[in-house]
């Protein structure tokens, strides 16, 4: 009879399966752990009013991310460990931290790619509220300052269909700029954003780029957007440091977009000659 295993075959199968599991479980239990140092600060708790680093040794599993590690640490060791996180798949932008000296999304960073002990700190150049949580309100202010929404009031409707079409080329042009998840890594990495708090910052300028370069908005709106960007603390503050481009978890060529807008502003002003 086909399909029915003999008792011997069944026993062998079970044995093989167990043999495969053993090393993985062994590694986990035998103390393959990862050492993380996490920044702690809590103004409302005695002993945490001065920032310090806490050491955690988290059991390692293949494919583990930094987010997995801090969640484990919080769930198993210290439930007061506080940090933002949500989607765990690099689309919500909540868990941008300063990991081993670089801005990264915790859910997108593999433990195995990092040198231990892994230093996990809140984003630099922002005020720390508690542990790894920073005050993002300045970041949001700058984003809102560029009117990050579609403004098509002046765009003439197309026939009776009222459908505004975007050419494939135009979509390609702005494609990368649409990927921003507002994580704040770029602004945190920019030295000018750190020094000059009126600087719009790479995220806001990129957002403006996304709309300014979108053909579906009218020329008047584009000019209006450029006027915001060409203020003293707009695009001109960018010193092409490229740190933003390097840390963006969505690989947006931020510096390039800012440069393009600088050129646009210059061209627009030269036209009056």
């Amino acid at each position, binding site marked *: 009879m086909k399909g029915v295993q003999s008792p011997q075959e069944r026993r062998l199968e079970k044995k093989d399966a167990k043999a495969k599991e053993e090393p993985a479980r062994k590694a986990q239990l035998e103390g393959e752990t990862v050492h993380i140092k996490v920044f702690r*600060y809590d*103004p409302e708790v005695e002993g945490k009013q001065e920032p310090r680093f806490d050491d955690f040794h988290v059991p390692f599993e293949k494919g583990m991310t930094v987010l997995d590690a801090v969640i484990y640490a919080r769930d198993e060791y210290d439930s007061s460990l506080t940090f933002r996180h949500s989607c765990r798949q690099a689309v919500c932008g909540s868990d941008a931290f300063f990991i081993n*000296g670089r801005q990264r999304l915790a859910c997108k960073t593999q433990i195995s790619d990092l040198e231990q002990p892994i230093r996990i700190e809140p984003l630099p*150049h922002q005020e*720390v509220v508690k542990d790894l949580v920073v005050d993002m309100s300045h970041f949001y202010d700058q984003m809102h300052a560029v009117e990050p929404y579609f403004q098509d009031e002046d765009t003439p409707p197309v026939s009776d269909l009222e459908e505004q079409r975007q050419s494939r080329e135009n979509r390609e042009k702005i494609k990368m700029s649409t990927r921003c998840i507002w994580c704040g890594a770029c602004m945190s990495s920019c030295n000018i954003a750190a020094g000059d708090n009126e600087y719009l910052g790479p995220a806001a300028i990129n957002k403006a780029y996304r709309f300014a370069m979108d053909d579906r908005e009218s020329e008047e709106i584009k000019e209006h957007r450029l006027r915001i960007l060409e203020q003293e603390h707009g695009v001109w503050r960018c010193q092409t440091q490229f740190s933003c481009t390097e840390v963006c978890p969505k690989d947006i060529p931020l510096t390039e977009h800012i*440069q393009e807008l600088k050129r646009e502003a210059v061209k627009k002003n030269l036209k009056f000659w």
Partner: protein
Amino acid sequence: MSQSYNRGLIEDFGRWKEFSAGMWAWIFHKFTGWMLIGYLFTHIAVLSTAIGAAQGEEVTVSAEALPNVDGTGEVSVDIYTATLGGLEGLVIVRVLEIGLLAVAVFHILNGLRLLMIDLGIGLEAQDKSFYASLILTGVITVASVPTFLAGVF
């Protein structure tokens, strides 16, 4: 959120090992820029002795000490020649001139790199072009040492 901890900028320079190429470029360009503007003011100040020289102001100097004065013993030269000669006669000044060269060359080369970036050329290689400017600055500086220190030792 009544209290928050502001870590400020100070911690940044402690992390110099983590700086990227673009960040070093920005720091060096600023540093060399400050040096050069400081030098420009000093340079015009020193050259202002030309006004005195044009009006016939002269001083007595020792011809051996000044590399730009021929002859021997005590001679009378215009104040411009005397000042420049006096400075050029000092070894430390000759060494500082090499430093000035390095500073100016780096600022020029990185400046060219920045002009390329502003024109949108070669953005993919921006970090490599910074390293290239550093190396080229070193090469040019070292190559110029013989000329700059000619006649000093």
